[in-house]
């Protein structure tokens, strides 16, 4: 396979087949917390996409240029978390300056991107899958963000309609949300094994 095919397949794989939220169950906190309204969900998806692209690329560089080959590969987690925290700080400052209303509506969920396990998960997956060229790492990181945005937007769309549905009283609120999330990931399990 030539490089372009690998990149395209990698992208499709991380967005649909190996979607971090729906098949790896990472990043559930913002997935359930910020999926109440579709515009906020989209904003959150974009913020996560930015952070995950930046940190995925940077961690690949750090991993390959500094850590690999030295006995300090064990410090990978700490380094990765540091990169992610730094990227989130950048996004926070940027949003506060240029999109104050979005900044206000995110509230606590914006700094919580730091602890979004989808991002750390992706950085570690890149290492685990043995991705050894930069272009592929960038495409995978970006695709992971797009996949997260897609998942959270689908969820927000469903939940907006769920507000008008006649849900049995004992299932209202969190239970029906979790059931919806389960059904959604069940649907995405249908893609399993298509690529890689």
């Amino acid at each position: 396979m030539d490089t372009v095919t690998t990149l395209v397949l990698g992208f499709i794989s991380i967005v649909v087949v190996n979607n971090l939220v729906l098949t790896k169950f990472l990043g559930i906190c913002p997935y359930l917390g910020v999926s109440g309204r579709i515009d906020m969900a989209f904003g959150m998806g974009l913020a996560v996409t930015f952070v995950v692209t930046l940190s995925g690329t940077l961690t690949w560089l750090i991993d390959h240029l500094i850590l690999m080959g030295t006995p300090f590969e064990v410090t990978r987690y700490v380094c990765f978390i540091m990169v992610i925290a730094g990227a989130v700080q950048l996004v926070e400052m940027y949003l506060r300056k240029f999109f104050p209303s979005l900044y206000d509506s995110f509230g606590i969920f914006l700094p919580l991107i730091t602890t979004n396990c989808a991002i750390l998960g992706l950085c570690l997956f890149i290492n685990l899958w043995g991705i050894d060229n930069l272009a592929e790492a960038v495409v995978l990181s970006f695709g992971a963000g797009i996949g997260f945005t897609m998942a959270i937007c689908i969820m927000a769309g469903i939940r907006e309609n769920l507000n008008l549905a006649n849900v049995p009283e004992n299932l209202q609120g969190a239970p029906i949300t979790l059931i919806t999330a389960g059904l959604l990931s069940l649907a995405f399990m249908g893609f399993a094994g298509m690529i890689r």
Partner: protein
Amino acid sequence: MILAGIYELWQSSWPAGVIMLGLGGSFALVLLIASEKLKVEEDPKIAQIHEALPGLDCGGCGYAGCGQYAKAVSQNPELIGRCAPGGKKTADKIASILNLQISDSGAPKKPIVHCRAHTEDKTFYGDYRGITTCTAANALASVQACNFGCLGFGDCTRVCRFDAIHIVDGLAMVDYEKCTGCGACAKACPRGLIEMVPFTYENMMTVACRNKEKGKVTRSMCKVGCIGCKLCSKVSDVFTVEDNLARVDYGRYKPDEANEKARGKCPTGVIILAGKGAPAQQEAKAGKAKASSG
């Protein structure tokens, strides 16, 4: 032995520390530059005002939350006094933060529901089985006979942050002990039945009906509607009857004898007292007679 172990550990691990320091330092540098470039100047008064507010984020002031209101009020002091849950205390605090003197903002406003028909008082043409919100039901012309009265699906209950308004037998009733007067229910009611009234006294007299149909039509729809008979306006000048509907001039209302007499004269008992510990509503005279005869 132990010392040697520790020394060995130090020997093999100090480069890791150097790497971490190097990475941390470079990120700190990037963030330092970014924080200088992307600095947001914020008035320290905004934070002070935010602290003085109750922090309930009820939205009664017309802003999305206390943070937004604090920002708005710091720029435009005319907005002082919009915070209903905080009341006069909060308004005074904000004024002192902004170095302003404010005059008395008047009596606190509380909601009054302009309907007193429970399910058994209303007339229905059919059985509504649609979406159970007032906004949805209101779109349907014939959901109940009275096109002015409370629908009883609880849009107001859902928006109330303080558990202060409830649907009791198909009628929204305000719990004045818990009500903070934020006005969220008044905005939520699709029929505009809930009015924010300045409570100059503990209990305010009001006409709990909005039906503008002629008396005979109103009677056919509802046992406790205002039929526009003008008995009240003849006894007390606080009452005015317009479009077959009595109204109270809240600014001139006093809990005096004439008003009490007017309340006693009302044939459908639609003139009620609202407020903390208001006396029980009287039964409709004519309505009750009709119900027992037919």
